[in-house]
């Protein structure tokens, strides 16, 4: 018997009992849809995490001053630690193997003014290497370079948010802004960064777009520290030439700083790449759980198909008898019923893919969960539905094929 006949027969079976077919399909539809949605949520979370850590630089080690209260700070100073300093940075560059670039940064929270506008901002004194180490890009003008730093030029680079607030429609580059009592010339504007919504180690969540960058030399020379106990710099970013050496390098850095800070615990070391790996490991368990839930719903869908197919075989005993009497072999009956259950599961699978895609989009639209549908996840969900159709259609089809023609033809 030709396979085309089976397919035609199966589709006829589906359309003859539209409502029943639809109900049977529901299980598969929800199963496939949930597999796709779950996978898209998992993938979305992964991409978000990667983007987040990419901003911090996957080959970087970030050494950051701990935020201490004034009392704690006093205590630390009393035990001889001066906090993070350019000296620390110099020693790290000299001793730690594999250091490619190193950037020190000093920070101060203060108001930045332009004409009558004022914005609360973090002013960051930075060395020129910084731009290349982080996943930052300049949108207009250019970034602070060696010349600016060497000559302590009074220039600054604005975050996209602050630039937008100050210069609506105006050209920002070349304008003068005032920070504390200093007038600085705007030489560039950074591209907009996604909000840093999560605290990573000592890196507190904040809006990166209101940052203002100035040459570190200028910062140290012209801006008064918040108080007398404030450390020289707040952060050292170290770029290592090989991601495999990150842990080793961070251990060496820790040893160096321990000695220089007289074993005061006033700094912390963040390795974005290690955090990413760790987070991925945690998420894996979560993803397996989501996948398992989705798989169970597909399984339940499959059981639904089996249930209906078993009932259908009972109901169609006479038909099977007639087909056998006019020459259908067992394998013909078998393939007829398997084709029918596969037709149900494939149709359900196709609808399920659409529902799943729609559901993922809805999740993104109405919640702050990012979703991303990988083509392979659609493929996986769809193939699963076919496998379910074959495996759960097998038993009913076998029952049908094993009916004795002599009995089934007289079945009332």
């Amino acid at each position: 018997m030709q396979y085309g006949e089976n397919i035609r027969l199966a589709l006829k079976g589906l359309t003859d009992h539209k409502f029943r077919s639809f109900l049977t399909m529901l299980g598969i539809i929800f199963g496939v849809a949930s597999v796709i949605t779950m996978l898209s949520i998992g993938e979305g979370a992964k991409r978000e995490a990667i983007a987040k850590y990419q901003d911090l630089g996957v080959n970087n080690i970030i050494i950051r001053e701990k935020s201490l209260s004034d009392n704690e700070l006093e205590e630390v100073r009393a035990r001889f630690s001066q906090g993070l300093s350019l000296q620390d940075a110099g020693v790290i560059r000299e001793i730690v193997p594999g250091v490619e670039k190193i950037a020190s940064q000093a920070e101060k929270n203060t108001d930045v003014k332009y004409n009558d506008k004022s914005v609360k901002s973090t002013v960051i004194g930075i060395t020129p290497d910084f731009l290349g180490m982080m996943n930052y890009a300049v949108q207009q003008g250019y970034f602070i370079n060696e010349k600016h730093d060497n000559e302590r030029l009074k220039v600054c680079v604005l975050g996209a948010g602050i630039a937008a607030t100050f210069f609506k429609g105006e050209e920002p580059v070349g304008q003068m802004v005032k920070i504390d009592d200093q007038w600085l010339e705007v030489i560039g504007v950074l591209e907009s960064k996604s909000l840093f919504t999560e605290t990573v180690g000592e890196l507190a969540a904040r809006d990166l777009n209101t940052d203002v960058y100035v040459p570190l030399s200028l910062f140290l020379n012209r801006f008064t520290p918040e108080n007398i106990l404030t450390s020289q710099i707040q952060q050292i970013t170290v770029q290592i030439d090989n991601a495999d050496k990150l842990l080793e390098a961070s251990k060496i850095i820790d040893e160096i700083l321990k000695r220089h800070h007289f074993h005061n615990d006033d700094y912390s070391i963040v390795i974005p790449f290690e955090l990413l790996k760790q987070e991925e490991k945690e998420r894996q368990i979560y993803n397996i759980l989501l996948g398992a839930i989705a798989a169970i719903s597909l399984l339940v869908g499959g059981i639904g198909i089996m249930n209906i197919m078993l009932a259908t075989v009972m109901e169609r005993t006479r038909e099977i008898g007639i087909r056998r009497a006019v020459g259908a072999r067992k394998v013909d009956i078998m393939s007829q019923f398997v084709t029918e259950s596969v037709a149900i599961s494939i149709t359900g699978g196709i609808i399920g893919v659409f529902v799943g895609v729609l559901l993922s989009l809805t999740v993104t639209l109405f919640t702050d969960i990012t979703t991303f549908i990988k083509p392979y996840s659609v493929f996986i969900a769809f193939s699963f539905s076919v496998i379910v159709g074959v495996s759960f259609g097998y038993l009913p089809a076998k029952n049908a094929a094993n009916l004795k023609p002599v009995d089934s033809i007289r079945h009332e």
Partner: protein
Amino acid sequence: MLIEIKELKKNYSLGSSEIPVIHGINLNIAKNEYVAIMGPSGSGKSTLMNILGCLDTASSGHYYLNKVDVSTLDDDALSVMRNREIGFIFQNFNLLPRLNAIQNVELPLIYAGTHAHERRERALQALEKVALTDRIDHKPNELSGGQRQRVAIARALVTNPGILLADEPTGALDSKTGIEIMRLFDELHREGNTIILITHEQEIANYAHRNIYLKDGLIHSDQPNRQKSKLS
């Protein structure tokens, strides 16, 4: 001989005991014979029909159909045998309700692997033989009893089988329609078909040329139909 049956026995197992239904039958039927097999209920005529139609196999003995020993065939080979050699006609028609007349007639050809175009052509020819070409798109429930039985006969004819095996073909029809169907059988017989009728009605058996009476699983009598002989 088209059909040769030697020492055929059939038992049914009921729990641990075996109930013999056919005790040992010897029977030959030649090509183009028109035979009626009769007998009271429980005589084994239905069992014999199932075995003749390759729906069931004997417990012992041999059944040669076109020189093939059917008793040695496996399930697949039996299916092929039914497809090629047997045209079933049932009391309750046994048409598939969701298919229309021509699709019902095409059914055996689907399992024979005939291509769609040829299938339709041959189904049309078969429907022509039963004078039903104007009803090919009708579903069984849109046809009268007599028309349904004609569709069933067309389905039996479509593969050009060795035997037409009719089980009480007029049992579900009124007497007038029954006579029409029996006339159709006469015609098919004249065209060269071999027909085996299973019936308990003498009136119907009278249409056949040879009457076999079964009783308690044995052939009680086997004689030419004198009435019919007179007619022809």
